[in-house]
C-alpha cells in the first residue's frame, strides 16, 4: 500500500509543477500576449481596449504575480482555461474538446495496431533467434533513426502524389458535414489510413526490438528450460512461459506510449494538417494564442501523467516485485 501512496504523492507534485510551469512560461518570455492579440486582430482594436484585454487574459500589470497565480489556479479548478485569441470568441476548453477525439481516435488505433503486431513479431524473432528473422533488426534500427516527419513526407510523395491512393492532408472530405453516417465514417478512415500507416511504420521497430530483447533474456531463465524439459509443446512454452513473462515491460511501455498519443504525434498532425491537439498547439504557437497554448500543453501533460499512473498501477498489479520497497 505504501508503494501506491508514494506514487500518488509524486504525481500530485508533478501535476503542481506542470501547472506552475504552464503559468510562468508565458509570463517570463519576452513576447507580450496583449500586443500579440492586438497585432493578430490587425489594428481593429483601439489602444483604449488594452486594459480590458489585460484584465481578460489575467495579465493585469497592477495585480501581483501571486494573486495572478491564485486566480489562475482557481480558474483551473473550475475547468476554465480562458478564451482563445485565434478562434475568436471560443472558450479554450471547447476548442480542445473538438480537437481531442481526432488525435485519440487516429493515434490510439495506430498505437494499438503497432503494439500488437510489433509484440507478435518481436516474440517470433526472439524465439527464432539466430535465424533469418534477425535480419529484421538492422532494418528496424534504420527506421528508428529516421525522423518521423521525413518518413511521413516520403509516404505522401509516394502514396498521395505519386500513386494518388490517399489524400495528402486533412481528416475528412470537406464537402461532407460531420455526422455518424457510413459515408462520413468511411471518409474519416480513408483520410486517416496514411497517417496511421506512417505512425505504425515508425513506431513498430521499438516494439519489435523491446519484445525481442526481453524474449532473449527470458528464454535463458530456468523456468523456461524446465518447461521445455517437461516436454511441453513449443507453442505452450512460447506463449505460456516465455512470452507471458517477457511482455511485462512491453505493457508498461504501452501504457506510457498512451500518453504520447496526445503529445508525441504533434509532428504527424502538422505534416498531415490533421485537426488534432498537436496541430492546435502548433497553430496556437504561430498565432501567439497564449490561452490556447497553455490549454493544449496542460491537456498533453495531464494525458502523460494519467498514462504514467496507469503504467505504475498496472505494473504494480502484474508484477508484485515492484511493490517492494528498495
Amino acid at each position, binding site marked *: 500500500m505504501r508503494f501506491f501512496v508514494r506514487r500518488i504523492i509524486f504525481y500530485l507534485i*508533478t501535476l503542481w509543477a506542470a501547472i506552475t510551469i504552464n503559468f510562468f512560461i508565458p509570463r517570463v518570455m519576452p513576447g507580450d500576449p496583449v500586443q500579440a492579440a492586438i497585432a493578430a486582430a490587425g489594428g481593429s482594436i483601439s489602444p483604449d481596449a488594452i486594459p480590458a484585454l489585460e484584465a481578460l487574459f489575467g495579465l493585469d500589470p497592477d495585480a501581483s504575480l501571486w494573486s495572478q497565480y491564485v486566480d489562475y489556479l482557481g480558474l483551473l479548478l473550475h475547468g476554465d482555461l480562458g478564451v482563445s485569441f485565434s478562434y475568436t470568441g471560443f472558450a479554450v476548453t471547447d476548442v480542445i474538446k473538438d480537437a481531442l477525439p481526432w488525435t485519440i481516435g487516429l493515434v490510439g488505433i495506430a498505437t494499438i495496431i503497432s503494439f500488437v503486431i510489433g509484440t507478435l513479431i518481436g516474440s517470433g524473432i526472439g524465439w527464432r533467434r539466430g535465424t533469418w528473422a534477425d535480419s529484421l533488426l538492422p532494418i528496424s534500427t534504420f527506421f528508428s533513426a529516421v*525522423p518521423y516527419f521525413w518518413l511521413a513526407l516520403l509516404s505522401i510523395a509516394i502514396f498521395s*502524389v505519386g500513386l494518388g491512393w490517399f489524400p495528402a492532408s486533412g481528416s475528412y472530405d470537406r464537402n461532407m458535414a460531420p455526422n455518424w453516417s457510413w459515408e462520413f465514417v468511411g471518409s474519416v478512415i480513408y483520410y486517416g489510413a496514411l497517417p496511421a500507416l506512417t505512425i505504425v511504420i515508425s513506431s513498430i521497430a521499438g516494439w519489435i526490438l523491446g519484445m525481442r530483447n526481453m*524474449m532473449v533474456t527470458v528464454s*535463458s531463465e530456468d523456468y523456461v528450460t524446465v518447461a521445455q524439459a517437461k516436454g511441453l509443446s513449443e507453442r505452450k512454452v512460447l506463449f505460456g512461459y516465455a512470452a507471458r513473462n517477457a511482455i511485462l515491460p512491453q505493457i508498461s511501455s504501452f501504457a506510457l506510449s498512451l500518453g504520447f498519443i496526445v503529445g508525441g504525434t*504533434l509532428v504527424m498532425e*502538422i505534416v498531415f494538417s490533421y485537426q488534432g491537439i498537436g496541430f492546435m498547439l502548433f497553430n496556437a504557437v504561430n498565432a501567439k494564442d497564449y490561452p490556447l497554448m497553455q490549454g493544449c500543453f496542460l491537456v498533453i501533460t495531464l494525458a502523460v501523467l494519467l498514462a504514467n499512473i496507469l503504467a505504475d498501477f498496472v505494473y504494480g498489479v502484474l508484477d508484485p516485485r515492484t511493490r517492494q520497497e528498495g
Partner: protein
Amino acid sequence: MTAVDNTVINDTVDLATDATAPDQGRRKFLFMRNAKAVTGLVILGFFTLIAIIGPYIAPYDPNARSKDILQPPSMAHLFGTTHVGQDIFSQIVVGTRGVMVVGFVAGIVATTIGVLIGVTAGFIGGWGDESLSALSNVFLVIPQLPLIIIIAGQLPSAGGLTVALVIAATGWAWGARVLRAQTLSLRRRDFVEAARANGEKTWRIITAEILPNLTAIIAAGFVGTVGFAVLSQITLSFIGITSVSDWNWGTVLFWAQQQLALQRGAWWWFVPAGLCIALLGMALTLINFGIDEFVNPRLRSTGLNARSLRKRKIRPRIGFTPVVYEAKEDRG
C-alpha cells in the same frame, strides 16, 4: 544492408573469442576494435569534419539565387536546385554546422546537468536524494517536444544556441536517473568503502572512485542526448518554429515543404537531407551499441546469425543461453 551486417557479426565473433585471451595490450583497445563503434565513430567524424570546414568547401553560397530553377541533380549541382535556383548541396554542407553545434552543445550541457544532479543524488542519499530524484522525475514526465515548441516559439528569432540550451534544459533527466541508480549501487562497493576508511575527501571519492566507473553510462547518455537534440532541432526547424534563415538540414526540409517540393516531384530537395539525418542517427545508435557491448560482453554473442550458428552445429531455440554457448566455446 545484409553485407554490412555480416561483417559486423563476424567481427563481434572474433571479439568474443579474443576477449577470453588474456592479452592486456589488446584489451585496452577493445572498444576501438568493435566494428559497430568504429563505423559509428567514422560517420560521426565525417559529419564533424564537414561541420568545421563546410562553409569553406561549399561550391555555392547557399542563399545565392541562380537561373537554374528546380534542376534535378547534375555535375554542376550535386543535389539539384531549389525553386529560386539555390544549390541544395551547399545548403546541406553549410547546414551541417548548425546541426552538429546544437547536438554537441545540448549534449554537453544536458550531460553535465545530469551528472551533477544524478551523482549528487545517488551519493548524498536521504532528503537531498529524495528531492533531486523528484525533480528529475518531474522533468521526465513533462512532455518534452511540446514544451520545447512552446519555449522556442516564444523566444524571438530563436537561434541555434538558444534551441540547444532549451533542449538541454528539458532533456537531462533521463541521464540523471540512470546515473543516480548506478551511483547508489557503487556507493556501497568495497573499493569506495575502502577509500572512505582511508580518510579520502568526499570530492576525491566522487571524482577518482565513482566517476571513472560511470564513464560508459555517461558516454552512452551523451550520445543519446546528442541524437535526441539533433532530431528535436531538425523537427523544430522543419515546422518553422525557429529561425528559418539559419541553415540546417531541418531548414532545407522546411523550404522543401513550403515550396511544395513533393507535389512538384522534386525528390532531390528532401531526400538528401533526410538521408543525412538517418545516417547521423544510425552512427549515434551504432556508437551506443558499441558502448553497450563493451560494457556488457553477454550482448556480444546475441547477434550471431544463422550461418555462423549452423557452422558450429548449434540449433538456436528457447532455453538456450548465450552463457552456455560461451562456456562451450571455451572448452572447445
